């Protein structure tokens, strides 16, 4: 039970043992850094800020749903300029146009600016090279470029809120033909929010592509001596598969964005059908013969792997935290590895389950239904393995474990509610209802986000040398858990009753006479509309519950409990063998890996855990002989 170096609460000073003695200037060390740890932190902080922004958008949307005819209250709108409010609020009320704009940007920001950068880029960047025993990523300058492209894309997206046309407002999925001609009345298209959304996406996609190339090369080629594939922590496997998903699935979306850009700026008709007529613009002045379906295919070809890109980093974090805090190995490591690889592969051929209502023929539709149902198997394997890992463990309920333990049932609900949607016949009823919203939010919000919070609490001591406050952690966790469920569970109920999504006025249309009709589950929407204010208040209280987290995150840097040694959780993976915080170059010793990643409570070892880096005693053989080179 030893760590390879002394603990010292340091401040990021990287005076290591004498190789390179170059003190970088401030701007090169903190701003234009090529060090994966600094880049990881940059990604993390930027992503958290974007997540907060996206959360605010949702709060305004929930006001509109719960109280559609009332003006926004002061506490939600005091910081908005009068000009902006005059343009976008009607007498202070949220208009349909504003709701659509907020809805589209909420989705975009949360997915592309929030979770993917936080999960894949932030955690991946910081932890992966450490866990494989590398000194940095394979292409550090490319890594830096990825971050700045991401920031640029994000700023373009946020900036689009302040142009005259407003930000994109055609859904985060940005379907043509609406997205092709929305904001088309703006003469200079580069000042139109819809066009800026596309430009932002091009930057973000390029950033992710470069990041994926970096990650994959690093994991393949920079593993430490003795770190064979089956000795990799599951975290690294998950990042590997995520990298492949990003690499191969993002380019078709880039193509779709490019083609939609051409539609908007060059007047092409890639996605504009013939004879398109709109109230504002009349008969569209375009050549027609385009296909809105083509856009959907290209979008969802990314869209489905994208949700696994959201998920896998969270599973990665949880898969590290559970063994550490149950003091026993991850159950079914090998099956999990195979499951995640199969998951990655299958995720490319399920995409049209988002398109069941587009009129595809039954043969193709059944093909996608089959693959979609099949893909639930590896997901269940992953979740079940993590659940079984808890059995018989000596569970330490620290903050990371709390969040990781909550991840399992929350993600379970999310995943299970996805199963009905996989069947094309059932999806006929549930498509575009709140059921879908409930399902994917369960997976992402109490699912993925809890997993990522767990990761933050878990690796914070390694990054800063201090623990986050346990008390504030509880203040963050318990209300979050309760309000997440209060917010999203009713959506499942409303959705099954038939409540349509993306309607800004809380469904008051369902109060008219036509709503006496009952759906096949025996529900009317009207009887469930009373849940709207309940859910909205849950959302606003959920926002309040994040305040302890923000306080905790920032104040613990200076006032958190100091760690006793470099390995405060007594974990076995390589990142815990570095000084705290890891210096430039990460490791102060020659890294050799002698065993698997989760050697806890071994009967034949006297210590409580047997870290990967600890050399065996002379009379012990090394663990299973290193495999032949993979060449």
């Amino acid at each position, binding site marked *: 039970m030893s760590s390879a170096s002394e603990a010292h609460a340091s401040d990021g000073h990287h005076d290591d043992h004498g190789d390179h003695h170059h003190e970088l200037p401030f701007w090169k060390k903190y701003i234009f850094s090529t060090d994966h740890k600094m880049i990881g932190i940059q990604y993390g902080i930027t992503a958290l800020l974007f997540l907060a922004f996206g959360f605010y958008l949702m709060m305004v949307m929930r006001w509109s749903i719960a109280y559609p005819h009332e003006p926004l209250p002061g506490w939600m709108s005091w910081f908005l300029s009068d000009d902006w409010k005059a343009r976008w609020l009607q007498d202070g009320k949220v208009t349909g146009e504003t709701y659509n704009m907020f809805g589209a940007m909420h989705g975009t920001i949360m997915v592309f600016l929030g979770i993917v950068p936080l999960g894949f880029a932030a955690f991946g960047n910081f932890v992966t090279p450490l866990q494989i025993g590398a000194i940095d990523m394979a292409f550090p300058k490319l890594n830096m470029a990825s971050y700045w492209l991401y920031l640029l894309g994000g700023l373009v997206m946020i900036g689009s809120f302040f142009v005259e046309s407003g930000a994109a407002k055609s859904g985060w999925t940005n379907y043509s033909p609406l997205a092709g001609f929305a904001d088309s009345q703006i003469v200079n298209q580069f000042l139109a929010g819809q066009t800026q959304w596309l430009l932002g996406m091009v930057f973000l996609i390029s950033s992710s592509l470069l990041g994926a190339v970096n990650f994959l090369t690093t994991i393949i080629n920079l593993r430490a001596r003795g770190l064979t594939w089956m000795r990799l922590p599951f975290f690294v496997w998950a990042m590997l598969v995520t990298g492949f998903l990003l690499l191969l699935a993002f380019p*078709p979306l880039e193509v779709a964005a490019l083609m939609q850009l*051409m539609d908007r700026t060059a007047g092409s*008709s890639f996605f504009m059908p013939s004879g398109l007529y709109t109230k504002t613009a009349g008969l569209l002045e375009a050549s027609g013969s385009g296909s809105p379906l083509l856009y959907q295919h290209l979008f969802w070809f990314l869209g489905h792997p994208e949700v696994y890109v959201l998920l896998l980093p969270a599973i990665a974090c949880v898969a590290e935290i559970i063994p550490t805090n149950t003091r026993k190995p991850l159950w079914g490591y090998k099956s999990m590895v195979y499951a995640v690889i199969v998951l990655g592969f299958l995720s490319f051929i399920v995409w049209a389950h988002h398109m069941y209502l587009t009129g595809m023929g039954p043969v193709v539709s059944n093909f996608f239904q089959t693959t979609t149902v099949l893909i639930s198997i590896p997901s269940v394997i992953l979740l079940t393995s993590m659940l079984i890992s808890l059995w018989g463990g000596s569970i330490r309920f620290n903050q990371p474990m709390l969040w990781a333990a909550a991840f399992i049932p929350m993600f379970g609900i999310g995943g299970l509610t996805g199963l009905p949607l996989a069947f094309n016949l059932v999806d006929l009823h549930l498509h575009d209802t709140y059921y879908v919203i409930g399902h994917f939010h369960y997976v992402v919000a109490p699912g993925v986000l809890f997993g990522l919070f767990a990761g933050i609490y878990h690796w914070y001591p390694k990054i800063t040398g201090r623990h986050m406050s346990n008390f504030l952690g509880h203040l963050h966790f318990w209300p979050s858990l309760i309000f997440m469920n209060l917010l999203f569970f009713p959506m499942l109920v409303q959705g099954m009753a038939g409540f349509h999504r993306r309607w800004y006025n809380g469904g008051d249309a369902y109060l008219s006479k036509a709503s006496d009709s009952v759906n096949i589950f025996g529900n009317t929407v009207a009887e469930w509309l009373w849940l709207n204010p309940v859910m909205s208040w849950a959302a606003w209280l959920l926002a309040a519950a994040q305040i302890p987290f923000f306080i905790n995150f920032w104040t613990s840097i200076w006032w958190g409990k100091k760690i006793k040694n470099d390995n405060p959780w007594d974990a076995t993976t390589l990142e815990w063998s570095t000084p705290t915080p890891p210096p430039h170059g990460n490791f102060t010793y020659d890294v050799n890996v002698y065993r698997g990643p989760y050697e806890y409570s071994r009967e034949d070892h006297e210590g409580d855990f047997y870290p990967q880096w600890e050399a065996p005693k002379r009379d012990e053989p090394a663990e299973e002989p290193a495999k032949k080179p993979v060449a």
Partner: protein
Amino acid sequence: MEIPYTFTARKDTGLFNSKIGIWLFLASEVMLFGGLFSGYVFLRLYADYPWPERALPVLPGLINTFVLIGSSVTVVFAWASLKMRQWGRFQFFMGITIFCAVIFMVLKGLEYNAKWHHQAVRLDDFTILEGHTHKAELDERGHLHIHHEHGAEPTEEEKKRQFPANVVVVEAEEINFTLVRAHDPYVKDILAKAKERGAVPVLADNAFFYGSPKDLPIDAAERKKLEDQLIKSHASGKEAVRFGDKKDSLYIPKDTQLTVDLLDRAEDVYLEARAINGEVRTKVLRKLWKDAREADKEDLPNFKLAEGIQIDPEEHLTGLVAEAPSALTFTFEKPVALHFKRSLIREGEGSSKLKDDTIIKGAVASSPMGLAVDAVDLRWVAQRAHEQGKDPKTVIEGLWIMENPEFKEIWERHSAQLAILTEELKKDGREPTENDKYRIDWQDLVAFHRAHEKHLEPGSPEVADLRPGMFEGITGPNHKIEENQHAFFSIDIPNEKVGFESLFTPKWNNYYAIYFTLTGLHGLHVVGGALVLAYYMFFSKGLYRRNPEWLANRVEIGGLFWHFVDLVWIFLFPILYLM
């Protein structure tokens, strides 16, 4: 502290880092171009109009293919030279590679340029005409005059007055600008065109902007008094002063001339007024809601209130809000002929609208489109005839363009040639294609013209040999050659008959859209690759001295990217040019 395996191979994978990196990147590029190709397949399979076949001149594409293949060979030789430590030879081959890239882009530029000057129009009966627009100008009476003559080069002054004969002429009486939408270039354009005709748009009515409520006189009679005062003081020669000397308000008297600055000032005050009104209305509505809730002493969820109770702040607002018009109208003394590009204006009954919602009130004058036609495509007419169960021949004979005597003669010659072709093909049991039957392209027109000059009858077998070959007209029909000018006939298309028109840009149809997107993206990759290779050619001597193997690996990576760019072109060329 150096990152390992940057140029030495790792034992178990057998690769160094950038090799893995570039193959990963190339896999993503396969997906990128694969996405575009799948788009091409989808659009072509499910097109509802006749997809252009063999519409592009093949020669530039063919030369570009040779150029890229050659550059692929030379880039491999450049790498080989580096491995053999022959610096001079490396620079030589790299130089050729980059030179090939330049030739490629130049040819591409020539191709694009030709297309962007070539006009196409689909008439309302689905006849498609392609050609170059003639030049036109407005005469003193404001009538459109199209120049059909192929005379001498126009003078400088003439060039300023002339414009492509693809405009809509409006006898403008009034112009209404929406303040927040008015696009400055459009305003300047209208001012310039009006100036050319010797007219200036002036404000139709007095405009009063009360930007801030504190400027607003509370009493309507008092307000009238103040406005009269202002009008009087303006008439007596004083400059238009700000209303009450207060910053937030603005008074623009009637007959003020239109300037961009004026519209900007008015827009500023309008926005201020809008912001204030928003704030006031919000406050009022909040109070009304609060009262409604307290009055009933029940907690009323909103959607219940929607059923019949509408809380409207309107009645409670008198005297509280600022006033500012959102649009200003300017008039001309008498109607002025203004011309606008056809794609920028939407004509309506008695008034037309520009893209920024500027409304131009006035009748649309005769605005024919003057075209020197170099191709006629009736395939869509035939397709629609088939779909409607009619005989294509009959439909074609009833087309508007048949009334043009020059075209009638061309169609006769074409039908005669088609008969000969059909006979020949019948011997092998084959049929002429839709293209053969219904499309007359520029080579046909030239052949017919030559036949006419040679006094050959329609249907003479020699006519087929009179077509210009692959090497004439490398980028398409050249309207500057005199022979072609006689071969291509002129036509004036009345405004009502124009269905859809465009230059040969992505707007014209999806074939050109995907062509430009695919070749444009590919061209960007060519430029990017060439820049990387140029960097290695010019700036790597230092690295060569320090670590030649590392440089050789880097050049190999660059070469791999270059080969991929060549690979994409290998597929692009047959798909876009030959199919």
